[in-house]
């Protein structure tokens, strides 16, 4: 296969990076951290405020590069990336002092008198790998947490979104502390070189395949990692009695499938599960909503590149899959455009039903009774999100208790991403470690317990030489039985019998 222009450019850039001394960039960030620059409250707050200014002042440029890389409409870009980031930075600035305050802890008798607290400290130098589908959002959202927690950062944006990567590379140093926060561009080669260095934390958003590579590399340095991966996020669509709620639900399904980056979203709805008697109603409603909302091609992002286009297009290659198309199916390789497509019951062993779709194809799988969806989901790897559109409280309870996923969302999709009060992350194949809001702060912190004792009271029973009486006193202490302890201490009570052997 001939090397394309893009690949040539990539290779050049990679070598350039290496020539520029990747290691020196990273070690400068580490030195900055060691000097203590990033630990103070003021620095963190000022960086967050500077980030806010970047988001506000560079809005048009961000819309431009997102449109260039992904064909995102500016409203989508604001709704899914810029706007959410503004909200997150505000939340972090507001919460920062509280998050940084040590947490007092209750102390038991054995260590009386003393005080204990849990003090958060930054992990140190963190590496953030972001993904191409929400290239600004997934770069800056982890960074907000890393900054709030007082770390130095190296960010490697995805090279599959080159305009955005360049934007971040050029603008982050203009607004943020360039000695502590670095942006390194490049592809797999650069990533590999970065992974060989020592980090105090690695935050990775991407595919399970690369997630494994990242974690294996991290293991060599005992570096803790957070992996934000993907999976096939199912959406159960229950039968609705009237049309009002159904219509709202179908709109939200639209918003959960084709809204975010044409389905190229880790929390996007991958496929639907519906009762077979309701399937036609659902399909008609979906078609209706597509017609109503999707009036111009610019309202949906395009596929990121030719490779992913091929990948998605290949799903159609199986005849049993292409014949299950009930809406859409047209593609335009030059524009990297794939029409919003609905399929009804493609074979369960076809690739479209075993691989994460990450595109605008929506398979609908029918079941006899909606409760069967639970078994269907349980038989498959744990997804990042399970969605369910239903009024049925029993079904909701069963889903909550019997299925496992990063999150479980009822009657809407994607919106959980904007909520700061719940952790966002996966489980099993969809990853581990959560973030957003204060969870971002904790993600990049070490919670260090600090116990302070005084010299004023001393219990000799802790020390050898050992004897029966000391043992009894300790038995009481460990049960936190103050009264019993005092009684025993005064010789008024004994408890338990036990031999001392000197074998």
């Amino acid at each position: 296969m001939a090397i394309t222009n893009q690949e040539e450019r990539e290779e050049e850039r990679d070598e350039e990076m290496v020539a520029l001394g990747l290691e020196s960039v990273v070690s400068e960030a580490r030195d900055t951290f060691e000097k203590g620059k990033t630990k103070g409250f003021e620095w963190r707050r000022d960086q967050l405020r500077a980030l806010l200014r970047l988001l506000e002042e560079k809005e048009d440029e961000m819309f431009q590069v997102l449109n260039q890389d992904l064909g995102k409409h500016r409203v989508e870009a604001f709704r899914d990336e810029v706007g959410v980031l503004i909200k997150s930075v505000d939340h972090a600035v507001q919460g920062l002092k509280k998050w940084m305050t040590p947490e007092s802890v209750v102390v038991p008798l054995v260590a009386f008198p003393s005080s204990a607290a849990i003090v958060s400290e930054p992990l140190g130098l963190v590496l953030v790998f972001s993904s191409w589908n929400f290239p600004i959002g997934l770069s800056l959202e982890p960074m907000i947490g890393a900054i709030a927690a007082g770390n130095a950062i190296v960010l490697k944006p995805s090279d599959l979104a080159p305009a955005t990567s360049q934007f971040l590379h050029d603008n982050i140093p203009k607004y943020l502390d360039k000695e502590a926060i670095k942006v390194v561009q490049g592809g797999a080669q650069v990533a590999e070189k970065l992974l060989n260095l020592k980090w105090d934390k690695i935050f990775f958003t991407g595919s399970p395949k690369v997630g494994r590579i990242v974690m294996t590399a991290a293991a060599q340095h005992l570096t803790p990692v957070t992996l934000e991966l993907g999976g096939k996020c199912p959406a159960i669509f229950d039968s609705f009695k009237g049309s009002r709620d159904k219509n709202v639900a179908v709109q939200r399904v639209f918003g959960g499938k084709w809204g975010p980056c044409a389905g190229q979203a880790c929390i996007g709805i991958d496929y639907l599960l519906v009762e077979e008697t309701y399937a036609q109603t659902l399909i008609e409603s979906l078609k209706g909503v597509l017609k109503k909302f999707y009036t111009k091609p610019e309202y949906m992002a395009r596929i990121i590149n030719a490779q992913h286009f091929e990948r998605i297009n290949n799903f159609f290659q199986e005849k049993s899959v292409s014949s299950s198309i009930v809406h859409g199916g047209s593609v335009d390789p030059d524009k990297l455009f794939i029409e919003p497509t609905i399929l009804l019951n493609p074979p369960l062993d076809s690739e479209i039903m075993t691989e994460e779709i990450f595109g605008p194809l929506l398979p609908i799988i029918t079941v006899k009774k909606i409760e069967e969806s639970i078994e269907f989901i349980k038989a498959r790897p744990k997804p990042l999100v399970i969605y369910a559109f239903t009024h049925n409280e029993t079904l909701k309870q069963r889903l909550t208790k019997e299925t496992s996923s990063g999150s479980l969302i009822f009657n809407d999709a994607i919106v959980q991403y904007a909520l700061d009060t719940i952790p966002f992350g996966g489980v099993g194949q969809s990853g581990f470690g959560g973030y957003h809001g204060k969870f971002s702060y904790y993600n990049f912190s070490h919670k260090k317990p600090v116990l302070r004792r005084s010299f004023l009271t001393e219990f000799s029973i802790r020390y050898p030489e050992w004897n029966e009486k000391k043992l009894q006193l300790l038995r009481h202490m460990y049960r936190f039985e103050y009264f019993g302890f005092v009684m025993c201490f005064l010789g008024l009570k004994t408890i338990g019998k036990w031999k001392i052997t000197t074998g």
Partner: protein
Amino acid sequence: MEAVVKGLRERFKEGKTRPYEWRVSQLEGIMRLIKEREEEIMEALWSDLSKPQMESYLHEISLSKAACGLALKQLKNWMKPEKVASQIATFSSTAQIIPEPFGVVLVISTWNYPFSLSIDPVIGAVAAGNCVMLKPSEIAPATSAFFAKYLPKYLDDSCIIVVQGGVKETTALLEQKWDKIFYTGNGKIGRIVMSAAAKNLTPVSLELGGKSPVVVDSDVNLKIAVKRIVVGKWGCNNGQACVAPDYITTTKSFAPKLVDALKDTLETFYGKDPLESADLSRIVNLNHFKRLTDLLDDQNVSDKIVFGGKRDEKRLKIAPTLLLDVSLDSLIMKDEIFGPLLPIITVEKLEDSFELIDSMPKPLAAYLFTNNKKLEDHFVKNISTGGILINDVALHLANLNLPFGGVGESGMGAYHGKFSFEAFTHKKSVLSRGFATEMRIRARYPPYTPNKQWILRKVIDGSYVALLLGLLGLHRD
């Protein structure tokens, strides 16, 4: 091995380990095990480590009982979903965080506190509703055999299984797919465990070790400080403990006093011939014995011994040994000692020790004895370590309200108390939205207009007014 794991997975799928009643029954089983088998446990610990029975009681039996008791008391609370606020952007909705078990978890424990370091993680795993595979350390064979014999008698052995063995068995275990791995041991194996876990994207907790430093200021009550240091070092399995003081730093001027006080206290506690004292654990095996004597016999180190140094290979005993100002390049200052040798490094100013500590891998614990508040604050702020204890040693792990775990080379993840429950729990976010408040203006959806953009901007920012306008469809271009 595969079949065994498959069985656990099926039990978990059946939902056997999820209900509160099952978890309580297992915790009660563990409690009964500890109470009824206390003698057998003590015997096993004596056989494996010659651990003084007081230590066995203090550090293993009672801490495990406390952990189990706390779990029984708090389990209902821990299992409760946490309701959290939802915000304007997802109006109206209810949000909660629901704890759920990971599934089938592997606990690999170690030999120095072979009872508690096995049972504590198991308590957490079971409280969190998981199926558990426990692999105790083969270097403590009597305790390992104890678990193999008694755990099935007291616990549900279809869901909690003990596998005995060494490297071969552990390797086979690591090839299986787990939903969580909890490992206690050293950094070298920790890396192997994490690499194996990476193949299945399995989250891990690694409780490792390091060189826990003790910084001693001259303004302290020396008598009490030294007692605490001694009992924290030699009273903890004769220094074979991950949080035992590894080395001391103090000022050149204070060192002589400190050394004298240490010598006095050591004699008081362990007598003139500590090799005969029943209050000191032996070294666990010949391998470690040789490792430690090699550290001592290094030609750059052996002349720095100021106290102790005696050893008895037949009985695997090494006397409490103090060394003064060994070279920082010597092996005894590079590797975790994990034994009864205590180097004392002197510095000009106490603050210089902070630099020294910083130059080494992050330890599991760091200790400071001082009355100087400023020094204390500086220490807490600047020393990165698993946990910090001021004016005492090792105690912090007895406080079940404090997370116990390392950072950097000393590990990742924490446990004890509620943190044990959380170590084996996935916190699932559950958001439930209503249908009533769908915005008439449908700002989320295309066709995208500037009007919608305005509403979106305001709502994401938290504006109630915009929300209202959006709901009513009132905002106009």
